């Protein structure tokens, strides 16, 4: 009874704290699992129907992103790089049906994935190649991006005389 006056404040603090913890947890899941988490939580709209698996690897001078896209025409794949976010979009051709469908297991529809790249990359060094149903996007790392020197100019007017 003696600490009754402190009760509302501590209640408020603890609930704010709980909310903050909950948010942190969600953020952590989103951060560590990225697109997959958004997909598994069902937070995405109906803009994509399937989620092909991707692998991201790093070599000395490039980042390699491999996406399994069997049966997707290379010209239908759209690869864009904005900053360090790589977005891959592709529709899956639905015109290959002939006859009556008896069994359907292969994924179809359109998909879109955005992959955050872990290092700074050079937007002029992006190559995408599709081979045997696997799309590989090779993004060259930015040369010395972290140690670029910015020269400091003096903007003071020159004194004549």
């Amino acid at each position, binding site marked *: 009874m003696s600490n009754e006056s402190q009760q509302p404040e501590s209640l408020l603090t603890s609930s704010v704290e709980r909310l903050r913890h909950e948010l942190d947890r969600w953020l952590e899941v989103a951060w560590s699992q990225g697109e997959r988490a958004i997909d598994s939580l069902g937070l995405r709209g109906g803009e994509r129907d399937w989620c092909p698996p991707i692998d991201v690897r790093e*070599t000395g001078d490039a980042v390699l992103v491999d996406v399994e896209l*069997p049966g997707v025409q290379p010209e239908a794949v759209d690869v864009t790089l904005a900053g360090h976010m790589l977005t891959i979009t592709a529709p899956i051709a639905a015109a290959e049906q002939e006859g009556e469908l008896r069994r359907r297991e*292969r994924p179809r529809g359109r998909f879109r994935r955005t992959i955050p790249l872990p290092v700074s990359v050079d937007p002029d060094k992006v190559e995408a190649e599709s081979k045997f149903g*696997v799309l590989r996007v090779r993004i060259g790392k930015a040369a010395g991006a972290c140690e670029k020197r910015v020269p400091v100019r003096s903007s003071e007017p020159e004194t004549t005389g």
Partner: protein
Amino acid sequence: MSQDHSLPTEPGTPDDGGERLPARTPERRLAAPPIDIFESDGGLVLRADLPGVTAEGLEVQVQDNKLTLFGRVTSTVPPEATVLHQEYEVCDFLRSFILSEEVDHDRIEAKLSGGVLEVVLPRADRPEPRRIPVKVQ
């Protein structure tokens, strides 16, 4: 679709392929590829997703009435590359089907394009019912 006897059915154990398949190293993971089956008047068309499988690494085999698909994936990853994020492993594909009598085994055709295998299973011509005269002795 289980009532349709013309469709290929899968044997209980998927990994009992014939001995003539390429030697498989035990540590490589095997996955069953997803398939679509279409039926038309001419027969059946089976399509399987085999991303990363080349024509050299693909084995399509018909033994007795069993159709086996085996695809070996050759990794094209440079050895010095380090994995940052991995959602799939390099694994080989294996799946087999029991074909019905209605498939003409000699005319089965297979082609691979862009990681998709298409197997055409033509319908066998049904022999005309033959009347057997009964001799009375």
